[in-house]
């Protein structure tokens, strides 16, 4: 039984169709702590001690955010800058997060076709997520491939609900610690067989 901390970050959650559908599905699940950063820190003044305690109390940290300008919204970056301190998260004595899992759950306006060598964005999602991956590495955390909901500008509600179902199932698997360690060779957690059975 693993504990999951969802660090949710969206400056305009009230206007987000995709993220409302996704978040609604999982935020009240057993084993999940849904932590809405923009609601908690509207003034960007992150309470570092409280955040550290939260991190320590959970096994899996989900960075749930829309993909803005090839990265996360500013408060989440602020959070990373402040909370993942030297001597605690990394550095010689920094082993507080050792072996915890790191997962990005993201929504993108553009489609998968836009995120490839020949697409508008030239690079794949996973290329853009490198900084997150390396942050996890530096902290000794285990980085999982992202769970991505793409093309949200055009996708239908029905499809979004199907994604929400997948997200829901994924959380169950994570809580049961049933996501196999060797997922490293796939690009998206969406593609693991358990979610597509």
């Amino acid at each position, binding site marked *: 039984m693993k504990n999951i901390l969802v660090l949710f970050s969206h*400056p*305009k*959650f009230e*206007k987000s*169709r995709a993220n409302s559908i996704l978040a609604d599905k999982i935020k009240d699940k057993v084993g999940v702590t849904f932590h809405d950063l*923009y*609601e908690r820190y509207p003034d960007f003044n992150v309470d570092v001690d409280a955040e550290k305690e939260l991190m320590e109390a959970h096994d899996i940290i989900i960075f749930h955010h829309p993909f803005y300008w090839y990265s996360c919204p500013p408060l989440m970056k602020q959070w990373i800058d402040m909370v993942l301190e030297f001597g605690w998260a990394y550095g010689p004595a920094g082993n507080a997060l050792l072996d915890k899992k790191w997962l990005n759950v993201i929504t993108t*306006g553009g489609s998968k076709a836009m995120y490839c060598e020949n697409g508008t964005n030239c690079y794949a999602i996973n290329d853009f997520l490198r900084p997150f991956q390396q942050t996890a590495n530096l902290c000794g955390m285990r980085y999982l491939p992202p769970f991505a909901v793409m093309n*949200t*500008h055009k996708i239908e509600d029905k499809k979004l609900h199907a994604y929400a179902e997948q997200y829901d199932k994924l959380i169950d698997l994570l809580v049961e610690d049933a996501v196999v360690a060797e997922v490293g060779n796939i690009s998206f957690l969406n593609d693991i067989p358990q979610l597509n059975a």
Partner: protein
Amino acid sequence: MTGNILFEAIVFLLGAIICVSIAKRLGLSSVLGYLLAGVLIGPYVLGFIGNEGEDILHFAEFGVVMMLFLIGLEIEPKNFWKMRKTIVGMGGIQVAGTMLISYFLFLFFGFDWKVALTFSMAVALSSTAIALQTIKEKGLLNTTFGTSSFSILLFQDIIVIFMLGALPLLANTDITPLENSEEHTNLLQNLPLGLQTLAILVSVATIVVAGRFLIVPLLRKVAKTGVRELLIAAALLIVFGISFLMELVGLSPALGAFLGGVVLSNSEFKHELESTLEPFKNLLLGLFFMAVGASINFIVIAKSPLTVGGILVAVIVLKALVLFVTGSFFKLKLNQKLLLTFSLSQIGEFAFVLLSFAFSLNILEQEQLDIMLVVTALTMTITPIIGIINERVLLPRLGTRESIKRPMDHIAKSQKVILVGFGHFGSTIGRFLRTHGVEATILDHDSNRVDFLRKMGFEVYYGDATRTDLLESAGIAEANILICAMDNPEVIKQLAKAVKSKYPKVKLMVRARDRYAAYEFLNMEIDHIYRESLETSLKLASEVLSQMGFRKYTLQRQVQNFIRYDEDSLKRLAKEKKIGDENYIFKARKELEQQEKLLEQDFKRGIVEFDTHWDGEQIRAALEDKNI
């Protein structure tokens, strides 16, 4: 037992307390308790009050007078206009249907056509006092049934004016009316009949005009003195004054009071008057019900039980049928229709007035009057009993109970915010809430400002908020948040204490003038304290909105936008006009002008709308437009 006033008062009060307590204990409506108390202490059972045939009702009618005044206050002309279709439609069908059928029935049973017409008028009316009291007690005012009943009763209350106006036309002129008349001096009695009708209509118009141009200015003067008793006195003066004038011209005082209420419903004193008169009303209404009970003339019943019984049953069945059909026309659900049918199937208090008036005009004979009066009193007594049968036997079997909870279309509407004090601190809060589409209910004790805010379209009540009754009429019972933005900490303390004990669910957000005030509030276990400044007033307002479901980060940005925008306008307005060092009143007026200007600007600029960053909806809409 003769007219010792103290003794009679004791009998009335004791009767009420005992019978109503028992009725309530048994789960019955208080109306039934009062009526039974009346029967018991009346001349025909224990004989404590009133002699046979004596008009006990006369004084007791003040309860009805006040009730109608208060109903009148509830009816703002614009609401009235909104409801006009149901009022005229339902009321019209009910009154016309009942009158028509009963008229032919009475004709059929051999009454003279004038008598039959008078009777049918009386029968068409229902008892506002009984029906509304019961509806309010059960909290059904906002159901379909509640509004339908209200519409029908309202229509009746208005149509009765015309009925009373028409009665003199039916009078038997060959007999001098004077000998029958037990009424007070009636100025119009010696006028020709057509003129009487005209005079009645003219006096109605007089009340309307006087209300607007005499009473409201008078109340403003009284309010300025700040002496609370004076307002009570003024309220009573209005009611008594109108009643007296109406009696003078031979009209029902209750109707006059109703009209007076309607006239005043648009004024800022609406809720002050309401909360002042409410306690008097209930007690006097109880007195009225007791008087109805006491006036059930058992001798008349004994003399012609068949006639009385026959008419009684016929009337109730007939009225119930017409109401049921009316309800069907307006597509009420079955349970709502049954409630309507059974709660309005009695003859109302106006029948007493109408019948006595007809008697004084020699349309009715003594015996006919007696029988109809008894029937009226009996129908009123039976109504609550029928209601109980309907509620306990019929409805549970047929029930499609109207669901109480309805989905709210917008978060802002599902929660009620009351804002007390609209000075410099409160007005900022009010403005910020309003730019977010949240209209707080405002209370203020400055009648000038109240006047101004009403012009700006706010729901505003004048009065001293430390009085819980005023808070109640402003809707504290349904409120989620009470903002205390007055500057005097003592007043806030008093208000907070009262609300905390009586409405613990209401969230209190208070302004603290300084540290010491904040200490005291903290010690009272008030969590939301705002030490005053522009920023804190906005902080308070944004926390109100956050409670209502607005996102905190959005609000954070909006607060900052608002401050920037407010400072801009501050600079602009400072250039525009020099605020001189004139006397206080001038300054106060300037401040109002300022607020008006600000509110208008807020509205025009729609500052909230500008914040569209990270708005996925917009991008989606744009993409759809271009169809990329």
